[in-house]
């Protein structure tokens, strides 16, 4: 209720915003975003993530340095640009989060329930996943997205993700495609990416994780999906679930060819 009221107020305020002689509101917003980019607090998460990766933890008192993210044990550089992918040792397709859970359980000896206790952080209660994702993704900055569909299970995941993207459901009869299959749509001042077009799909996927200034938190692509599900009034998208991996595979693959450009900073 409050949210809706606020949205209406914001729309009205947006329309009433005076356009100055020299500069359009769009140009001023662009200036605002540019100023933000000069110092991205995502770096604080990256530093924590790197320390976490190297820290000996868990019942086995081991670090994650032997974790194979797809390019060999301990190879982090460029790995995120090729995820999700099929992992033979687990005989399934995994996205970054799923693979981290795998490494935390196999290498460090955590139980799944303990490893996934806090998947999204709030304030000083930080999520290890957000910190690790910040660092791991930062090691793919500038790397060309290259999600392969070589394995049958990768193709399966992609097709399932595509189905989910267009699947209408929930009390509002909504699908991802309701908001994200047309160009020029927006919520308040936020342009919604058209994920059915290459440019839109690339821009959206390659700019997560991001430091969200509205929350003061580093948020991952996994969080983005979860929040879209919430906004659609869908049941919660289970962390590291088949559904989550499939949808991520679909969206990551559609970003192929673009340079990965995160952690970013967004309003």
């Amino acid at each position, binding site marked *: 209720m409050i949210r809706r009221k606020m949205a209406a107020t914001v729309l009205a305020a*947006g329309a009433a*915003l005076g356009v100055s002689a020299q500069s359009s*509101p769009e140009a*001023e*917003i662009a200036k*605002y975003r540019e*100023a933000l980019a*000069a110092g991205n607090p995502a770096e604080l998460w990256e530093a924590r993530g790197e320390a976490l990766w190297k820290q000996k933890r868990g019942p086995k008192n081991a670090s994650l340095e032997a974790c194979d993210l797809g390019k060999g044990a301990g190879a982090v550089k460029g790995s995120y640009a090729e995820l999700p992918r099929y992992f033979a040792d687990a005989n399934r397709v995994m996205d970054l989060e799923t693979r981290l859970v795998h490494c935390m359980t196999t290498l460090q000896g955590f139980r799944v329930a303990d490893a996934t206790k806090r998947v999204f952080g709030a304030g000083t209660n930080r999520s290890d996943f957000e910190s690790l994702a910040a660092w791991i993704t930062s090691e793919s900055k500038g790397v060309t997205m290259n999600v392969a569909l070589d394995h049958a299970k990768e193709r399966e995941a992609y097709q399932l993700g595509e189905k989910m993207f267009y699947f209408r459901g929930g009390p509002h009869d909504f699908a991802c495609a309701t908001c994200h299959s047309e160009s020029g749509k927006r919520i*308040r001042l936020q342009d919604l990416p058209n994920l059915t077009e290459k440019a839109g799909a690339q821009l959206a996927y390659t700019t997560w994780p991001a430091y969200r200034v509205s929350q003061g938190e580093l948020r991952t692509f996994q969080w983005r999906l979860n929040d879209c599900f919430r906004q659609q009034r869908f049941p919660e998208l289970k962390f590291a679930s088949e559904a989550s991996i499939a949808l991520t595979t679909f969206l990551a693959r559609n970003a192929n060819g673009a340079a990965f450009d995160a952690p970013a900073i967004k309003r």
Partner: protein
Amino acid sequence: MKQSRRRALKAGGGAGVLALLCAAGVVSPGDVLAQSGNQAAFAMKTVREAMRALGAQAPAVSAAIQIKASEIAENGAVVPISIESKLPGTESITLLIEKNPNPLAASFTIPAGTEPNVSTRVKIGESSDVYALVKAEGKFYMAKKEIKITLGGCGG
């Protein structure tokens, strides 16, 4: 402490104060007593009072002070602002936000050798004039700029 809490709770009564609740905070009297420097000025409720507490009675408007910020901030929770002074002998640069519960946001002391040009980010509860107060060769000068906020300091 108790008093400021009661006051804030009272303020929290209506939905209309949402922006206020999320914006820059009240500094409790205890904090002020415990700290030195310009802390008393941080507790003031108006730009005028805060400037006076800093020793600036009627600062002259100066074109040599530039407030660099986009005219529209997408989110009031984080508003990047740079202030540059071209006044010779600049000793301090202070940023005030008129509509925040306590206008004084940040004050910088500039030793010789440091450029009188600082950038930081602040919370702004609603569209507001922001003031840059500069002390140069013992005298105060100021500049003003309006910043519009499309989403209050606590928007989601």
